[in-house]
Structures are given as structure tokens and as C-alpha cells.
């Protein structure tokens, strides 16, 4: 059997989210963030049974990427961002990249000037970030990479994921395991490398 070639991806085209606040969403992305409206689709009877008619509209997030929304007409809102401190309201987020400290500062100043509540700047391992939310409650982040990722990062990440699966899925009594168990296993794996 011939080897199946590895296809490539070339970055994000768009990500899409439902909105029940079409006006606020347009005003936030177009006017407050200042993102260009790229495209809008309108459809009747194309959605599935319970949401046949909708609009689908796209804002320019830079570098060929867009953030898009579906507005389903006549559908009861289902705000899955309710309980904004829950992990569902935090983990599923969009982080946009800026390239300089000056750009991060400009975004902070713009968001503050437009009355958007933003976080303090958070220094993570390889990015520093500002956090805020859109009118739907979706978490957004603007990130400045503080260094590029290299082979050692990929090597270490592969070990970490291996340790995660061995600890929390494939190992003995995975439901009893803690992150300390995973770090201890990672230590054993690293020791074998040295």
C-alpha cells in the first residue's frame, strides 16, 4: 500500500459562532474592534430542520483569517457562554496575534477608549495576552508571541502528551490520577532521555 502523503494547512480561514445579538455583534466587531466586514451570506431553508433560515457574516481578523457568525432567524437563544467563569466559557476562545509590543499597547488603548472591559496583561510561557469578551460572552484574546517555538518545544510537548495519555487514559486507575502523577511520569521519561 502506498504511503498517504501528509497534506498541509496554511492557517485559519475562519472560525464561526452562533449569535443571538446580531446588532451588538456587528457593532462590536465592525465599529469597536474596527474589523472590516468581508462577506455575508443569507439563506432560506438551507439550515437543518429547526433552524432553516440564517445569515452568516464574516469579519477580517488579519492575514487571511476571518471570524464569522451565524444568526439563525426566529430561534430561541441558547447562550452556551452562560456561567462565564465555567471552563466552557473560558476554554473555547479565540486568540488573535499581534506582532509588536506597540500593537498590543494600541489594542489596549483602543479597547479601553471604546469602553471594553479588558484584563491586565498576562505573561504566559510564550505569549503575553489581553483578554476580553464580545457581546455574546465569547472570550477573546490578543496575544504577542514573546519567542518563537523550536524543536525542543515540540520534543517536550510530545513527551508531555505521551505522559498525559499514559496517566489519565491508558494507565492503571486513571480516574484516581492527579497532575502530580503526570509530572512524576514525565520526570521518569525525561530522566531516560538524559
Amino acid at each position: 500500500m502506498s504511503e498517504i502523503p501528509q497534506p498541509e494547512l496554511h492557517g485559519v480561514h475562519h472560525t464561526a459562532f452562533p449569535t443571538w445579538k446580531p446588532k451588538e455583534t456587528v457593532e462590536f466587531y465592525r465599529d469597536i474592534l474596527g474589523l472590516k466586514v468581508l462577506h455575508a451570506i443569507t439563506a432560506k431553508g438551507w439550515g437543518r430542520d429547526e433552524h432553516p433560515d440564517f445569515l452568516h457574516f464574516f469579519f477580517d481578523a488579519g492575514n487571511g483569517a476571518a471570524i464569522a457568525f451565524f444568526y439563525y432567524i426566529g430561534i430561541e437563544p441558547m447562550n452556551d457562554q452562560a456561567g462565564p467563569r465555567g471552563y466552557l466559557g473560558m476554554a473555547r476562545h479565540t486568540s488573535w496575534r499581534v506582532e509588536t509590543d506597540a500593537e498590543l499597547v494600541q489594542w489596549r488603548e483602543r479597547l479601553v477608549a471604546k469602553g471594553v472591559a479588558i484584563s491586565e496583561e498576562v505573561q504566559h510561557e510564550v505569549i503575553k495576552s489581553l483578554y476580553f469578551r464580545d457581546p455574546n460572552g465569547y472570550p477573546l484574546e490578543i496575544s504577542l508571541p514573546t519567542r518563537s517555538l523550536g524543536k525542543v518545544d515540540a520534543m517536550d510537548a510530545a513527551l508531555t502528551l505521551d505522559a498525559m495519555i499514559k496517566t489519565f487514559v491508558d494507565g492503571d486507575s486513571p480516574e484516581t490520577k492527579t497532575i502530580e502523577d503526570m509530572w512524576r511520569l514525565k520526570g521518569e521519561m525525561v530522566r531516560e532521555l538524559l
Partner: protein
Amino acid sequence: MAILYVLDVLEFSPLVDFSERAYELSVTNHGAYRKIEATDKLTISRVDTGMDPAIWFGALVGGFEGNIEEFSEHTLTII
């Protein structure tokens, strides 16, 4: 014996710098990792490293040997 393995990258270098200054800790180089070792307790103070909390709480990603006595916002102690 308490051991902390630290990937040799910028964001974790304060852990290594702190440990090189601490007389009770030894640091050795092993390719992509630094091995921080203590014969008794391995204690690192976050404030003394200058690390921000978001990175500090990821300080164990390289793995360890021993038992974690404390891993708080202020202190990491492995015994």
C-alpha cells in the same frame, strides 16, 4: 533525593538562575533539559525567581522526582 527537570527555554530560565545561586541546589546540563537537584529539600521561591504566576504554575512541566510538599503561588518544595 528531589529533582526538578527544566526545559532549557527562556521562560523557565529564572528557575535555573535561582537554583544556580542556591547553595543547597545543584544544576547540571543535559541537552534540552537542566536537572535541578537537592539531597534534602528542593525549595524555590517564586518571588525570588521573579516569575509571573501564569508561568510559575507551569514550572513542573519538565517533570520531577520525589514528592511535592508544597506548590503554591509562593513556593515550590519537592522532598
